[in-house]
């Protein structure tokens, strides 16, 4: 296709992806409030709209109209830049995540992905690494001991679990032979033993890696049971103590967008991406894979929220020793065993 | 097409800024950051020449430079922490006695 069409198609894809991601973030908040409410034997939001479905809209309007306080003792440039950094990096990783096959829209044949880079997985890992800056800088620029402690702890936790996260993915890379997310999904197509799908968690034997990834993902996104840095009873509110209104909303959005990115990666790398029964006319053939992908993400987010409502949180030293002394050796062992099996199978 | 000397000039500018920072700054951490800037400038030269002569060894060497920079940063920052604990200052001009 010509350069003009290419740019137009890309801009449309970016706009749609951002819109869908931001709506998903808002409704993940709704889902969390409902599910945690039910776990705690209460209703959750019910008043605004049916089943409280308009609650995120009401929250958005509230955040826009709230007074945006900037305390006088903060270091202004970084105080304002930190939530922006957090949210920008959280929203950027959607650029390399595929949600479906190639589709034919009119006369344009395009993949359902903003761009298919052949180091897509490394890009997502790189963006996750850069997201640590938002938290570290917000903790420091707030000029407040609780924020500084929360920021330092959160950043130390995130960089420690990034290693276990990355290593748990290397088994998948060995099996797929490529770092492009689309090719990893395509390597998981088909079935074996008749009916079990060829996903990396079954055929590839990466169930240990999946659980390491799950736990490292909870720590990366600062969620219970690893959320000591933002625990209210421990550190006031950790690194976002001094933030109000829109800046706080940006941290909030960044956290949920990170959750969604991590869920997307798990679906792509371990659960077979968008594979599922596809039937019907052309338009259904294009949309059904997206539906199966969204179903996997929904299940993953539901598990996230379920764990949040159920488990208590780790103490900080328990958290760090869990990451370094248990998950990291386990991830390395998984890598060695996967490599051995791949070599021995020829 | 970008002529190779453009990459070399950019690499040289970065290296020169690193050397300048190393010489004029007084804070230990900023001096260390200037060292990292020098290493980055050199990395760019390596990759540019790798592309020029068509040998991938240049890129592999950049990988090794990064790993060595990581090790050096870890040890160097630990030394800086130890210096701060004993001398209570980060100004190199005041770290001028072998024994306090």
């Amino acid at each position, binding site marked *: 296709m010509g350069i003009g069409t290419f740019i137009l198609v890309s801009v449309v894809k970016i706009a749609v992806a951002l819109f869908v991601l931001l709506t998903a973030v808002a409704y993940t908040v709704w889902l969390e409030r409902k599910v945690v409410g039910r776990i705690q034997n209460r209703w959750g939001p019910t008043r605004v709209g049916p089943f409280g479905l308009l609650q995120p809209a009401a929250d958005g309007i509230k955040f826009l109209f709230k007074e945006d306080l900037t305390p006088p003792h903060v270091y202004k440039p970084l105080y304002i830049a930190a939530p922006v950094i957090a949210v920008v990096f959280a929203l950027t990783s959607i650029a390399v995540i595929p949600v479906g096959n190639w589709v034919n829209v009119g006369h344009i044949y395009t993949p359902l992905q903003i761009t298919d880079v052949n180091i897509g997985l490394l890009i997502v890992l790189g963006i996750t690494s850069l997201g640590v800056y938002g938290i570290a800088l917000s903790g420091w620029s707030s000029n407040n001991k609780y924020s500084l402690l929360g920021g330092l702890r959160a950043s130390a936790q995130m960089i420690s679990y990034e290693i276990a996260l990355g290593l748990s993915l290397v088994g998948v890379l060995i099996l797929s032979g490529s770092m492009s997310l689309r090719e990893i999904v395509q390597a998981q197509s088909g079935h074996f033993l008749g009916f079990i799908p060829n996903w990396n968690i079954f055929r590839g034997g990466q169930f240990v890696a999946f659980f390491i990834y799950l736990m490292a993902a909870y720590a990366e996104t600062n969620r219970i049971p690893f959320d000591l840095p933002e625990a209210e009873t421990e550190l006031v509110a950790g690194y976002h103590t001094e933030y109000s209104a829109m800046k706080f909303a940006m941290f909030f959005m960044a956290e949920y967008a990170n959750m969604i990115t991590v869920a997307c990666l798990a679906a792509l790398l371990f659960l077979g991406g968008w594979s599922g029964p596809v039937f019907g006319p052309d338009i259904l053939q294009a949309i059904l894979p997206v539906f199966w992908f969204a179903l996997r993400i929904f299940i993953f987010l539901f598990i996230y929220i379920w764990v949040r409502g159920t488990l208590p949180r780790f103490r900080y030293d328990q958290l760090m020793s869990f990451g370094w002394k248990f998950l990291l050796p386990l991830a390395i062992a998984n890598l060695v065993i996967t490599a051995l099996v791949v070599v021995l199978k020829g | 097409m970008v002529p190779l000397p453009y990459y070399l000039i950019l690499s040289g500018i970065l290296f020169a800024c690193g050397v300048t920072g190393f010489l004029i700054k007084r804070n230990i951490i900023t001096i260390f950051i200037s060292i990292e800037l020098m290493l980055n400038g050199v990395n760019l030269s390596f*990759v*540019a020449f790798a592309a020029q002569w068509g040998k991938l060894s240049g890129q592999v060497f950049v990988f090794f430079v990064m790993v060595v920079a990581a090790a050096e940063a870890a040890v160097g920052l630990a030394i800086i922490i130890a210096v701060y604990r004993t001398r209570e200052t980060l100004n190199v001009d005041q770290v001028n006695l072998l024994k306090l």
Partner: protein
Amino acid sequence: MISVHLVLFLIFGAVCVAGAINLLAQSHPINSALSLVVVMGALAVEYLLLGAEFVAAVQVIVYAGAIMVLFVFVIMLLNAGTEERTKGGSYVAMIVGIPGMLAGSALVAWVLLTHSGTKSVVAGALPGSPAQVAPLLFHEFLLPFEVTSILVLVAIMGAVVLASHPNSDPKKEKT
């Protein structure tokens, strides 16, 4: 001739130089560290323009995402304030030195551009995907690879020992 490659190189080259000069101009080390992160990000794009995608990804993940986070940590931990200017800097050195250095670099740049006889670097000249770098890394350069892994291990041990609290020395007498 003006190509997209040249325009992108100039834009990100300008970002690199601006970041480097900002690093020198700032007085607080946190601003210098963040300027260096910007320089590293722009350099990663320059590597991508040269086709070195693995090196660009490693630059972002390792250099900008781990080493610089370590720097920012230490700055936050030590509460490094704005640095003090040492008295007795020479104004003459600054007035003569900066134009002198600029003249020297302009001379070197002119010589390089006109007399070096090298050809232009095409965008993505040398494909540097992980699949192509890996055989070199694990066959030709296996010994340096293993040696750097031991180096990193030694560095970890050294950093832990150097940064540990002096009060935890069990040989300290408590009478």
